[in-house]
């Protein structure tokens, strides 16, 4: 039993060291999809958070409740909704995006967006009113005040972005449902190798496990662990710096 596990780990490390093309291609898809989703979500959520905090409008509190609810959406449900919208017979079916990396980005965007938005709003709201007032008394325009406030809230906003990243790198349900966990065989001079199309680290793990390839599953798990470890390390470093500053 233990030997089986040790052998799995040893083979997993070997796969990583030799840069096994299959493992690398799966990791690449994961990083590509999840990073794109986080970048797009950040690019939209942060400016929206600024607008949200600087403008008053009806139903603002209700909207904030919705955003906060969105922070805890079950990934599988998000995947299902995106699938239903984009499936052949769905309203956006003509785009023919099901089982592509693009649709995976869309699904993960929906998971990351409320988190980044919600955390950014909280961070911006936590910047004391007196900061804005001081900037105004020094002759700042609205735009300049907004920039200053974002700068003051930077640690909180970055924490939100990293939290969004943590979520999308860890989730399985959404990308599995819309991406289909597809890999294909490719003929190369070295022989036939498997290459990922929409298979990611998180979706590959249950598949390889169920197929009995524990070594591959462990290799994927190690990469995923390393990624989440780095993300969390960044969060805690930033938290500490924010605490001092």
């Amino acid at each position, binding site marked *: 039993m233990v030997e089986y596990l040790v052998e799995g780990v040893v083979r997993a490390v070997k796969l990583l060291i030799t840069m096994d093309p299959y493992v690398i291609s799966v990791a690449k898809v994961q990083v590509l999809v999840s990073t794109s989703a986080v970048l797009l979500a950040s690019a939209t959520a942060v400016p929206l958070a600024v607008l949200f905090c600087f403008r008053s409008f009806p139903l603002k509190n209700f909207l904030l409740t919705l955003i906060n609810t969105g922070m805890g959406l079950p990934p599988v449900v998000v995947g299902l909704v995106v699938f239903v919208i984009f499936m052949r017979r769905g309203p956006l079916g003509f785009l023919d995006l099901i089982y592509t990396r693009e649709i995976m980005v869309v699904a993960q965007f929906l998971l990351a967006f409320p988190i980044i938005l919600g955390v950014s709003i909280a961070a911006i709201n936590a910047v004391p009113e*007196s900061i804005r007032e*001081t900037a*105004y*008394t*020094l002759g700042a325009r609205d735009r300049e005040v907004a920039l200053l406030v974002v700068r003051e809230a930077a640690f909180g906003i970055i924490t939100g972005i990293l939290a969004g990243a943590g979520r999308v790198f860890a989730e399985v349900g959404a990308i599995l449902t819309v991406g289909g966990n597809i890999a294909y065989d490719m003929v190369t001079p070295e022989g036939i190798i498997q290459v990922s199309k929409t298979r990611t680290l998180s979706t590959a793990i249950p598949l390889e496990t169920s197929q009995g390839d524990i070594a591959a599953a462990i290799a994927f798990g190690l990469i995923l662990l390393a990624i989440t470890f780095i993300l969390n390390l960044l969060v805690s470093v930033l938290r500490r710096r924010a605490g001092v500053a």
Partner: protein
Amino acid sequence: MRSIVRLEGVSKRFAGKEVLSGINLEIREGELLTLLGPSGAGKTTLMRIINLFTRPSEGRLYFRDRDVAQLRGEELLKVRRSMAMVFQKPVMFTGSVFYNVAYGLKIRGYSRAEVERRVDEALRLVGLAGYEARSAHTLSGGEAQRVAFARAIVIQPELLLLDEPTTSLDPISEARVHSIIRRVKELGISVVLTTHKQHEALALGDRVAVLKDGKLQQVGPPEEVIYAPQTRFVAEFTGMVNIFEGVVEKVAEVCRVRVGQVQLEMPAFEASPGERVCVGIRPEEVMLLRTDVPLNPRHRNVLEGVVEEILPQGSAMLRLRIGSGGLRISADVPRHVVEKMGVREGGKVLFSLKASCLRRLEE
């Protein structure tokens, strides 16, 4: 002297509650006007109106003879950019001292070289030369307040608004800030300073405006406000602790007012016999008289009393609380005089309330 800001009949209501009413006030070019009043008097609201943060509910606000009360957008910005404000609690932006001081210059689009030159100059003025690279959040309260001053002065405003800038500072930091304020004035910048500390208002102000419950009580040079307060409130707030209610007995060149069992003579004022009035005298104007020499007939309002209490009043003065004819009078007397005359608690003293120092106060 030209006026830089003029308020005419300015009132402000928040949710139906009148915070300021009928304020007429002029801030003259190059002067330092102190706005003295207790918390809740409306000082901050008045500052915010001048800084175009709050629109008056009524009245007009002129900046250099231009009505600016209803300005918006870029026009408002242009006027506000000729002022700067420092708050009670210094607000530091996250970043270096340089970043903080340079902020107002950067948003005005000054060149890097000009920004550096001016920041250096401003930090020198507040005595923090060489602090550029320090993180603003590591400064002490007093240092942060001085950075806030540098940040405001660096843009060379025509008018500097200081909203209780020394309230949260210790006495040493307060003294530093006072000397910075004097230097700012020397640069020709007009200053409005709000404070609830009478010593500060009187020591720094070219003129003092006393505010109570949203209404201006008196505006004038410090000596006038101290020695000729018009209302009971101004008198109390500026340290006139001897205030009595009495009845007018005689109106002539010299008026006579009966307070308890004591008759006081004082300079003429308009009143009719039998009218109830309020009169006051500052504690340092109560004069102890020697009992070992004949009484000088010049002295008016000579009273005898018993010293009930002797309290230190600063380092050089003692405050005697004297009971006399049902009155309680405070007299501030130099320590050495008290010692020389052998005055002690429970002993009898002769003193005079100098007639010309007694003043009638409006309620």
